[in-house]
């Protein structure tokens, strides 16, 4: 198979999903790029996680209450959901529509919110905003439950505009005024949560959204220049139709799927890295009447996405590092103990899933990395990638042996390993060091049983060295 096809497919699967084993990459490449994109975009036609089986072994996953169980279940899905783009979109929206357990204090509600992102994250953006605005967790997280007809709390109204739809500004201009924030907040008065049942003696019950018309400010409001007796639904209609919203969503998709962008607060003043790419996605947004799937379809089929310039142009988030490695090495691809420990790893690397630091979310790109998190990332990756017992790694070693019947020169050995974990391109200096390291063992022979054992050991060690490179920190 053409190496270019493999590299491109690996890129697609790293971005539209959490990566894959070499075997899976090759199978998808054989199936074709376009067909794989269609498969990813239409998860309804694909088998999902076998939930019946999962619940049988992990009964705690049935409407889990504890936050740790919800995080654990999500990480299991990241690793195992065949509908990979769904899982990636759940992470995408979780990183934008931020709500966190530290305030909500209900693992169950966090789980409900992530499920909502998983199921509706590729749908119509206006409908998604409606689901978000009626999500009990979000209503509580951003204090809309404290916003009343007679005493308006502006928190949700403001963040809806600033962080969830239009953004502060674009092309140097501001997108909305302080008066728009106030009008928006008034339109959402009465969007509240039904009083909760007491948790004892039967445990917590799910929260429920409830609109209270008597607590809703129905007076006339001026929002984005339109005057009327606006309710939250009217505001969402207007927001969805804004060019600023199309721009905001398109830039987020680019930042998440294509290449790291500058942080969101700079977007008013700093133009997109690739203005044509953003314009193409904006057009898809309006042509499809706000369909996220249509934007994704443009994105994955575009030349800007396929370009070699954007491969490994993103620092992996901790979730991508952990789930991606498990998929690459074939660990926890079935239900077995130990998934709890794995699910805690992103936290050690600075990404406490379901508990973003603030409503503005995690700082991404190179800010994922500090001296503490880098040690965690490298040790975690090296530990698994160097374990030649794991099926994914074992298959990589077998492939390396099968690549040549003659012994491999140190350079061939390094290049073979780099190809199998990526294909990953590394800087010349990195490459030189890896080859120097391989040279100590001389040619890699794999004829006799003893040679095979030594070959396997050296491959495991080389995979660990590759896991430790700066280049491996990128997706």
């Amino acid at each position: 198979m053409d190496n270019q096809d493999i590299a491109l497919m690996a890129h697609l699967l790293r971005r539209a999903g959490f990566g894959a084993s070499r075997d899976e990459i090759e199978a998808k490449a054989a199936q074709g790029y376009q067909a794989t994109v269609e498969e990813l975009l239409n998860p309804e036609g694909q088998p999902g996680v076998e939930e019946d089986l999962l619940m049988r072994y992990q009964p705690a996953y049935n409407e889990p209450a504890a936050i740790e169980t919800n995080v654990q279940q999500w990480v299991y899905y990241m690793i195992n959901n065949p509908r990979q783009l769904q899982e990636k979109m759940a992470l995408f929206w979780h990183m934008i529509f931020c709500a966190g357990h530290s305030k909500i204090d209900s693992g169950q509600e966090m789980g409900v919110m992530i499920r909502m992102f998983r199921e509706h994250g590729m749908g119509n953006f206006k409908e998604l905003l409606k689901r978000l605005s009626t999500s009990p967790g979000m209503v509580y997280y951003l204090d809309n439950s404290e916003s009343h007809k007679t005493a308006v709390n502006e928190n949700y109204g403001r963040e809806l505009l600033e962080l969830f739809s239009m953004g502060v500004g674009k092309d140097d201009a501001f997108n909305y005024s302080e008066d728009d924030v106030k009008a928006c907040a008034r339109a959402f008065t009465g969007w509240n949560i039904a009083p909760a049942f007491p948790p004892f003696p039967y445990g917590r019950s799910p929260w429920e959204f409830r609109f209270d018309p008597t607590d809703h400010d129905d007076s006339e409001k001026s929002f984005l220049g339109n005057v009327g007796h606006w309710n939250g639904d009217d505001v969402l209609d207007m927001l969805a139709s804004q060019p600023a919203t199309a721009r905001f969503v398109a830039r987020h998709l680019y930042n998440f799927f294509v290449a790291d962008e500058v942080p969101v607060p700079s977007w008013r003043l700093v133009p997109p890295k690739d203005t044509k790419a953003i314009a193409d996605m904006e057009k898809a947004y309006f042509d499809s009447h706000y369909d996220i799937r249509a934007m994704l379809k443009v994105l994955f089929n575009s030349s800007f996405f396929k370009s070699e310039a954007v491969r490994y142009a993103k620092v992996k988030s901790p979730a991508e590092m952990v789930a991606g490695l498990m998929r690459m090495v074939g660990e926890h691809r079935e239900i077995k103990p130990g998934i709890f420990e794995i699910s805690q790893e992103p936290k050690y690397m600075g990404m406490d899933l379901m508990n973003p630091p603030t409503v503005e979310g995690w700082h991404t790109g190179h800010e994922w990395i500090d001296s503490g998190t880098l040690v965690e990332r490298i040790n975690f990756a090296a530990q698994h990638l160097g374990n030649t017992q794991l099926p994914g790694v074992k298959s990589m070693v077998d492939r390396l042996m099968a690549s040549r019947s003659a012994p491999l020169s140190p350079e061939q050995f390094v290049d073979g390993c780099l190809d199998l974990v990526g294909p990953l391109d590394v800087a010349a200096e990195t490459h030189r060091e890896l080859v120097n390291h391989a040279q100590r063992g001389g040619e890699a022979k794999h004829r006799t049983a003893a040679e095979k054992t030594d070959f396997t050991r050296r491959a495991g060690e080389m995979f660990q060295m590759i896991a430790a490179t700066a280049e491996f920190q990128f997706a």
Partner: protein
Amino acid sequence: MVSTKKDRVLAVLSLSGGNDGLNTIVPYTNGMYRDARPTIAIPENQVIPLNDQLGLHPTMAPLKKFWDEGKLAIFLGVGYPTPSYSHFRSMDIWHTCEPEKIGTEGWLGRVIKDLDPKSDNVLTGVNFGRGLPRALAKDGVPVASVGNLETYGLLTGIDGEEQRGEALEVFGRMYSPTVGRNMVMDYIHRTGSDALKGADILSTAPGLYSSNVEYSSSVVGGYMKNIAQTHLAGFGSRVLYTTSPYNSFDSHANQASAHAALWTDVSRNVDSFVEDLREHNANENVLLFMFSEFGRRITDNGSGTDHGAASVAFAVGDHVKGGIYGVYPSLEPGKQEEGGNLKFSMDFRSVYTTILEDWMGLDAKPIVNGNFEKVKFLQTA
């Protein structure tokens, strides 16, 4: 050598989960205490009395020794206005000193920045435990986070000392600072070489250490020992932080035995820690601070206690003026915090302010976000 001239060090032990202040510093003569806790009140004859009203939990005898020496400060009614009953949120408030809005910067992150603005020493701040508590988080401040000091380092999965040594050499060269790549690559290279430097230094600590003191084999024992080892190795670390096992103090059920086991262990290891430093004549410049994110409900629930508000905190050290600071929050129904809890009588930021100004010699206001009255528990001479 006069050790007081050495740079002063702050060690912090966070008691995660919400320590029950009422059963830690027991108001043993207060009838309302006994009424509120039919199941788990500490019997008067078991309390270790500090005065005619307050006493220590029976398992805290090792701390009583420091009390008798005048080296233990006990802070009563510590908390903050409008308490949060969420572990995460309340701990974040203690970490960031931001009770109203959500903060991302930790108070100790700011301390490390003030102490070492250019990050000349990658070990100015060290955390023991997996993952960095927000107290130590600040952009651009490198803090080593050590899961296990005995095995700490990069590429710990490589078998064989020689192989690992070789691998680390390769790593060092791969991460050697380069110029001319892009900004992000340069940053990651710098971070990688910082991490390696920190790990290289830290990994020598256990080998440099010998002591007649024994710690318990618990998590707290292991990490208190690691703090002592790091301090004794003389790496110039100024902030050393650790946390009891996550939410271990969250005593909703079976509190009597669980809480006793926790304080047996904490007391013993604090004792070991201080004695260890004393054995090495390295105790004078160390202050140990212990706190929890909140206390617990005044009334018990038949087996344990639910999340509460104000609680107690402790400081141990040679420069501590031993004693009780603050007033015990009232147990009277009309004077409680809403929901049957103790109302705070001392803001935790007052304690921080004292530590920052009178111990670390820093300007506290920008670190704790405001002016707070000091609690004069340190000898300022």
